[in-house]
């Protein structure tokens, strides 16, 4: 489904990603781990199409379409969802209004009928209950004044509503209490199906107890220096990254 080939990218003249190869098939869950500053969020941003990154070489295919030529919203409509490490606060923009607009843009793109306010509210309230989010979130401006954990849960709510083909979750687990962690993981697992895939960026093996990855990759200095199955995560938890970094060097 997702094919990343020799992806190199940076900001201004500073290279950050130095050649990433990764292929993710439908139905799979991939975990990406790696020390701070290794380029995990950069990878997520490049996949989502954030401005300011220069892709200097390589390609990214989503179901054989070249993702890199698309505007961020086109990628979103093609089914790429990014749960932000730091979700943006948007004062004054009502959450319900925002989310319904997004859902309908994506439905339109898929040739589905737009949801009217009633149906939308019904759907979103069901999801909110599952995620343990209180309904008054809908009345508040997007992410504004939300606690760290609330922002993360709001990202998962959006994901659940948009039903993406490829979800990239950037440290969605940090800042969550144990209950919230389980709720978030449930949300992710519920989405899981034969037609979609997930890339989960995390620092903690703990999350992977709930969202069981098929593959674990270690990103270091803009390259994947090691890939393995879920046992790699345990190994990392125990030994840290040094042994890998030394091997790589």
């Amino acid at each position, binding site marked *: 489904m997702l094919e990343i080939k020799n992806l190199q990218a940076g900001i201004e003249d500073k290279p950050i990603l130095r050649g990433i190869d990764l292929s993710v098939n439908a139905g799979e869950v991939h975990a990406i781990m790696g020390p701070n500053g290794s380029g995990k969020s950069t990878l997520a941003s490049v996949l989502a*199409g954030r401005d300011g990154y220069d892709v200097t070489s390589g390609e990214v295919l989503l179901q054989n379409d070249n993702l890199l030529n698309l505007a961020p919203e086109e990628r979103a409509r093609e089914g790429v969802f990014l749960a932000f490490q730091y979700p943006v606060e948007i004062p*004054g923009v009502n959450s319900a209004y925002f989310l319904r607009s997004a859902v309908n*843009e994506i439905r339109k793109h898929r040739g589905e009928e737009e949801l009217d306010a009633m149906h939308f509210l019904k759907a979103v309230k069901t999801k909110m209950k599952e995620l343990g989010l209180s309904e008054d979130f809908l009345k508040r401006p997007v992410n504004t004044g939300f606690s760290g954990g609330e922002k993360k849960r709001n990202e998962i709510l959006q994901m659940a509503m948009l039903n993406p083909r490829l979800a990239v979750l950037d440290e969605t687990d940090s800042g969550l209490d144990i209950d919230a962690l389980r709720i978030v993981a449930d949300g992710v697992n519920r989405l899981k199906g034969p037609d979609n895939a997930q890339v989960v960026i995390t620092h903690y093996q703990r999350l992977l107890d709930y969202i069981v990855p098929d593959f674990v990759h270690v990103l270091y200095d803009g390259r994947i220096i090691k890939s393995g199955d879920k046992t790699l995560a345990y190994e990392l938890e125990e030994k840290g990254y040094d042994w890998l970094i030394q091997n790589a060097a």
Partner: protein
Amino acid sequence: MSSATANETAPTPIEAFARVEQAGGPLLPLRKTGLARFAERGFPTTRDEDWRFTSLKPLADLPFLPTLEPSDQAFNQTEINGITFGRHDVDRLVFVDGHHSSDLSLISDQPDGVTVSNLADSLSELKNDISSLSANDENPFIALNDAFFTDGALIRIPSNGRLAKPVHLVFLSTAAGDGQAAHVRNWIDAGDNAQGTLVESHLSLGQAATSTNVVTETRIGAGANLEHIKFQDQSDSTVHLASLHSELSKDARYAFHSLALGSRLSRNNLRMRLAKPGIECVLNGLYMTHSDQLADHHMIVDHAAPRCDSHEYFNGILDNQSRGVFHGRILVQSDAQKTNAKQTNKNLILSDHATANTKPQLEIYADDVRCTHGATVGELDDDAIFYLQTRGLDTKTARRMLMHGFAGEIVDRIQHDGIREELDQLVWNRLEDKHHLD
């Protein structure tokens, strides 16, 4: 020419005073003093620090003649309903060119002790009240208003009383001739623990270059809670000058919302005096300007007592050659310990020719205070646009949504549901109609 010298153009407002003098009345001394004060000062110029960014040039070519007679234009209730807030259950007091129209007003039974009426009929009773809160203000337009005001609203809520429904003050300018000036005076008195919602609309029928000069004095008793919404949407050829003087008592809560959409030049002077401890005062405003409009909010929040909170939030969306001016001064006197004051002014500039002037100021003489202010001028936030894009919205939609949100930040602070919703829609339509959104 930066100074407005209406004095040089004949006939002058000063000459029109003979008629006022003839009419006499209990406030004649105030009117005379007002005239003298105005004659002494004349119109302000941009050399006055308080008018530095706001040239009164639009007034310069106009006689600024008081409309001392009611207009003979006829309207009916339905026409008024069609304007604003017509579908809400409110009491309505209508003034046409500064003159009360009882035919157009709609007053239901308010609880005992509540007065909702015009003020001209109660002048003897208000003799000592009118100008008691505005007297120390040097603003020459207040002096002019003292001299010439024709009518306005009188709202009284007794102690522990509440308005049964919101009161809507509708000020229409209909004058056909350029240079007519309606001088409106309002007196609002909320007793201890009184509650209510007040809406003030300023609208025009027709396109004449008229002026409105409104002075409102508001006394808010201990523990009272008043929400006051001002909606100014006069035609683009008008000049709108307003002064609001509010004095707040212990533990009072006062929220004033200003939506300035209309007029070629509008100026809101807001003077809040937090005279007793425990007050919470919110000034919340939105200005959206296009073509060559200028919208100016000029406020002083005077913390004269300890433990008061004040918040000012003003957002401006400026398009074409228009200008937005914000002057906010928080004054914390030496007794006003434990003051918590916050002020923000944000401006979005949509065109290469629009200008934002902002002067957020803190003047602090007490040491145990928390005061912050912030001002921004700029474009929409790129990160926010990207966030919306990743959720499938194209940049156009994203920009619209953010702009709406920018206005919505202000509108959302209006507590009255119906009025907030109506204004939200109105602001949104206005953005779509008049502004470059892409």
